[in-house]
């Protein structure tokens, strides 16, 4: 599985790319591979206030439904509307066009509590 070194990871299988005061969030290659073909993404709403560990999105595959948990506290400022018509982007490009949303982060130090690539690989046994 692909686990880019420049990203941070949550134990719930999201990746986090730090972009100044914001973070871009998606699901990992490991997560998409386990979900199988994604057919629907309930994208969060712009303006939604999220709290670390709360479910703020749902991803449905032909196999199952999975909650997506906010990796940090903050406010959703951008969402990937392409996923409404092309949910399969989560499978084909999980770290690129398959991003889910951008969160304006309340407390930047929360990022330090997330896993680095090596820590995430250790978690998934990859």
């Amino acid at each position: 599985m692909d686990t880019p070194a420049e990203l941070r990871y949550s134990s719930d299988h999201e990746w986090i790319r730090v972009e100044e005061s914001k973070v871009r969030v998606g699901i990992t290659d490991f997560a998409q591979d386990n979900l199988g073909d994604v057919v629907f993404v309930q994208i969060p709403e712009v303006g939604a206030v999220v709290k670390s560990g709360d479910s703020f999105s749902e991803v449905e595959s032909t196999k199952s439904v999975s909650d997506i948990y906010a990796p940090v506290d903050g406010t959703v400022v951008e969402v990937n509307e392409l996923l409404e018509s092309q949910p399969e982007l989560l499978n084909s490009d999980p770290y690129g066009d398959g991003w889910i949303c951008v969160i304006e982060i309340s407390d930047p130090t929360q990022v330090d509590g997330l896993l680095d690539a090596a820590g995430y690989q250790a978690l998934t046994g990859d």
Partner: protein
Amino acid sequence: MTLKLSPLDAAHRALGAKMTEFGGWDMPLNYSAGTLAEHRACRTSAVAFDVSHLGTVRVAGPGAFDALQRALTNDLGKVEPGRCQYTHSLDVDGSVADDIIVWWRSAEIFDVMPNASNTDRIVGALQALGGDGVTVEDVGATRAVIAVQGPQARSMLSAVMPEAAAVGRFRCIDVDFDGTTIVAAGTGYTGEDGLELAVPVDRAADVWRAVLSVGIEPAGLGARDTLRLEAGLPLHGHELGAGITTLNAGLEWVVSWTKGDFIGRDALAAQKEAGVSPILRGLSVEGKRPPRADMAVMSGEQRVGTVSSGNFSPMLEHGIALAFLDPGIEVGADVALDARGTLLTAKVVDLPFITKAG
């Protein structure tokens, strides 16, 4: 619990299959193409499934026909040796203990094919009925079963297995494959044309390789489930099972009222007299979000039923579901599904959702 492995297990792993537990077996969920691509290949071309997890119970002897007439709902008298028949095994209360395909191999030999997890129960039930002149033997471990399905299944397979590829629909024949006798049956579970091959275990990998050599793609249980759902076919444990009769599932054509007694007949007849409720219906759901089993079906504020199976339809590109509904909710009715608090708009429709190509 140790999972049972198919005779084709090594072949699946070599193809990079993602495996899943099903009915006590470790079987392919999907291969590298993924469930959606495998599904579409079956609707437009041809795919091969390993369905070795199905049981094969051989019922043989001069008393075999009568024993099966007592044990099963359909009338074997409507067919003959060399034919296949879809039928149900009921409990005395009318619940569908299993749905089964019978391959009537020759005058006194029947291969009864239950679902994986029900095989032991069916063996026991048939042995209890057996008596003199009937032997009941679980021969599942002696063979693999490969299902080749799709509008081009026969034309593609004919390059390597012409005899098998020509088997008639709902017929079963013995054919030679490179010195080994295999059984070809014109049956399947996808709503497409196709056939199933029962192959002695020691030649399973050879036949699998031959099937794939002509460009037929492997497909896993993920696609098998979305295909059968589009075709409106029941899955035991969802549309059939404890508390669900053949009539609830809308399958009265599987029941012979005229052949004489069979297990569960009295209960079915009483239910038919009293009125059947609930009834299995199809739901066409707006949007891509997949409906799921156990979702409540609402008509306004009133709950009118429960989803038994649901998913995204790869061909229709929206949600579809099978649901047990109050009999007053008829085809054409507008309903809603409760998807974890979000209401999905749906309409009651005729089954199947997809009809066979050509």
